[in-house]
């Protein structure tokens, strides 16, 4: 179905950002505009999601130039899921940041850049043109650079250098891969590339190009060996920014991998083995990294790396059931990681630190909040029936069926280490007595006005409820993931939908 509606969420964020420019110094007006813009964009994304589910594929040929000549916008089930997740997380983080950020940062144009970042993410998930994907990636990374560095202190600057360098390097590699791909096929449209790549006789060159894409996307999604920029950067910015980075930015790389390695390239045996090996190493390094850390945010940064391994593992198995697991895990991971970064921000407000050795008695002082955090932690580990459980079961089952026992062992070890660090966070930060008495000066949260408290807690409650909903309603989410996986395994439907659309 051809519709202009695909662009609506992207344009909504663009207009919100432009509108914010006119209220540069008026903090309250900025907050209101941002919340309204996010809410409308969320409704638009919900509508887009619903349209994709009922009509199948949505396409838009920009400027009326037929594919493969013009730039195509395309929404299939996978894109629709990602768009909906982005809208959900950006709404939650948008509300959260109205209360958690200090005024000087908002006056530096935080909301303005935030909406550009979300616009870039939505564009990347909806485009059907590989060079256009590169451009959206750049929109996202330049916004993320600014969010990461603005108003930063020394530690933030140090993390930012690694972040900026690695992301710029990834972009160059991605651009090189696009250049070579254009050289061997003469097209940039993802659907058109699929057919042309299959006709190329020099298979070695195709494999090398596909691996260049893997390296480019791999740096962005922090897989082994080029993951180190993530743990040294993600714990430095304020929690609201870390929440959107941790939830969505690495997943953008995974989305691009899923798209490129199902439609454009059909991975051969060598590539699949490589994915499995990389997945094992990512799982193990990420898991080991969490063990000796004391700051909750650092633990969380390494957990992101570790859990990216699950997604790469599913990509390496390359079966339909594995893709179901990957998509299910993606849905769970985006929500839980963003949520937990926001929770770490609230803990910082309650205790002035996120170092678990110096934290304590949170359960005694904030019992309701602690029980909610417990739910999030449980779904992070994957305790049934919460959201993390179902994709893990599927993935383990599929790995076992494929007789990839080393990978299975790595998946289980990573799961256990996650369990271990989560228990450590719980017992140190929530259960044990606080090592020093809690005074009024330390607990900033208690002195917040009621509206501020609501703005901090409501997004966390919302995302926790979504986690619970996914866990308890796993049947429907499974069906959704199954539909997306079916489409990924049958790229010809995607290709036909893009190439055969006539005005």
């Amino acid at each position, binding site marked *: 179905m051809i519709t202009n509606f695909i662009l609506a969420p992207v344009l909504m964020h663009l207009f919100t950002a432009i509108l914010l420019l006119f209220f540069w110094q008026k903090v309250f007006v900025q907050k209101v505009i941002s919340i309204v813009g996010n809410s409308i964009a969320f409704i638009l994304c919900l509508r887009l999601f619903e349209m994709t589910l009922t009509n199948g594929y949505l396409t838009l040929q920009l400027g009326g130039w037929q594919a493969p000549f013009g730039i195509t916008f395309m929404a299939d089930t996978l894109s629709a899921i990602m768009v909906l997740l982005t809208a959900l997380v950006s709404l939650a983080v948008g509300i959260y940041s109205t209360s958690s950020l200090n005024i000087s940062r908002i006056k530096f144009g935080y909301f303005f850049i935030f909406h550009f970042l979300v616009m870039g993410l939505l564009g990347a998930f909806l485009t059907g043109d590989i060079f256009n994907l590169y451009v959206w990636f750049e929109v996202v990374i330049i916004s993320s650079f600014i969010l990461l560095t603005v108003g930063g202190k020394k530690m933030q*600057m140090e993390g930012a250098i690694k972040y900026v360098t690695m992301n710029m390097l990834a972009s160059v590699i991605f*651009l090189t891969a696009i250049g070579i791909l254009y050289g061997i096929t003469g097209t940039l449209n993802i659907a058109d590339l699929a057919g042309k790549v299959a006709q190329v006789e020099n298979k070695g060159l195709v494999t090398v190009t596909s691996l260049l894409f893997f390296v480019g996307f791999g740096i962005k999604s922090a897989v082994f060996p080029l993951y180190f920029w993530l743990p040294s950067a993600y714990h430095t910015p304020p929690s609201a920014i870390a929440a959107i980075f941790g939830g969505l930015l690495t997943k953008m790389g995974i989305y691009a991998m899923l798209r490129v390695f199902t439609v454009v390239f059909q991975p051969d045996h060598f590539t699949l083995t490589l994915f499995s090996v990389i997945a094992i190493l990512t799982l193990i390094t990420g898991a080991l990294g969490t063990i000796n850390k004391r700051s909750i945010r650092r633990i969380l940064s390494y957990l992101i790396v570790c859990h990216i391994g699950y997604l790469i593992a599913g990509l390496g198995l390359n079966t339909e059931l594995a893709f179901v697991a990957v998509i299910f895990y993606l849905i769970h991971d985006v929500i839980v990681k963003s949520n937990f970064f926001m929770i770490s921000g609230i803990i910082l407000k309650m205790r002035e630190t996120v170092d678990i050795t110096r934290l304590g008695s949170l359960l005694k002082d904030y019992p309701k909040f602690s029980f909610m955090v417990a739910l999030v932690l449980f779904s992070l580990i994957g305790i049934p029936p919460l959201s993390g459980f179902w994709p893990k079961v599927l993935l383990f089952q599929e790995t076992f069926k494929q007789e990839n026992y080393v990978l299975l062992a790595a998946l289980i070890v990573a799961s256990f280490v996650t369990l271990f660090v989560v228990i450590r966070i719980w017992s140190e930060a929530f259960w044990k007595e606080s090592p020093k008495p809690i005074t009024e000066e330390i607990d900033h949260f208690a002195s917040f006005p009621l509206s501020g408290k609501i703005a901090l807690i409501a997004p966390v409650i919302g995302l926790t409820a979504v986690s619970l909903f996914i866990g308890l309603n796993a049947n429907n989410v499974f069906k959704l993931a199954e539909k997306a996986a079916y489409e990924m395994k049958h790229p010809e439907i995607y290709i036909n939908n893009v190439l055969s659309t006539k005005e």
Partner: protein
Amino acid sequence: MELLLVILVGAFYSAGIYMMFRRSMVKLLLGLLLLGNGANILIFLIGGITKGKAPIIKPQNTEFLEVYADPVPQALILTAIVISFALTAFAIVLLKRVYTTTGSDDLDSLNIQDLDI
């Protein structure tokens, strides 16, 4: 012409990666710039070089009669140049700020925070 560009691309990439491995922040920046330029020339080279045949076709012709220059790689390069311009401008400001806050150009001196677990 092609051979010359091939050598140039190779030189840009290798010099860029070599510069990125150095400890100085300025050299890191130069390395990134060289890599970006290398990628641009690679696209230009790989899109096929056709001399003096602008892709402008008379209205009465409905099909290509001879080989024309491909306009797409140039559009790609132009986009990439604009993006890398913005990124470089940002990177220069960032490195300047890091230099003023830490007072050092040495990248190895920036690893203090990784020791603090």
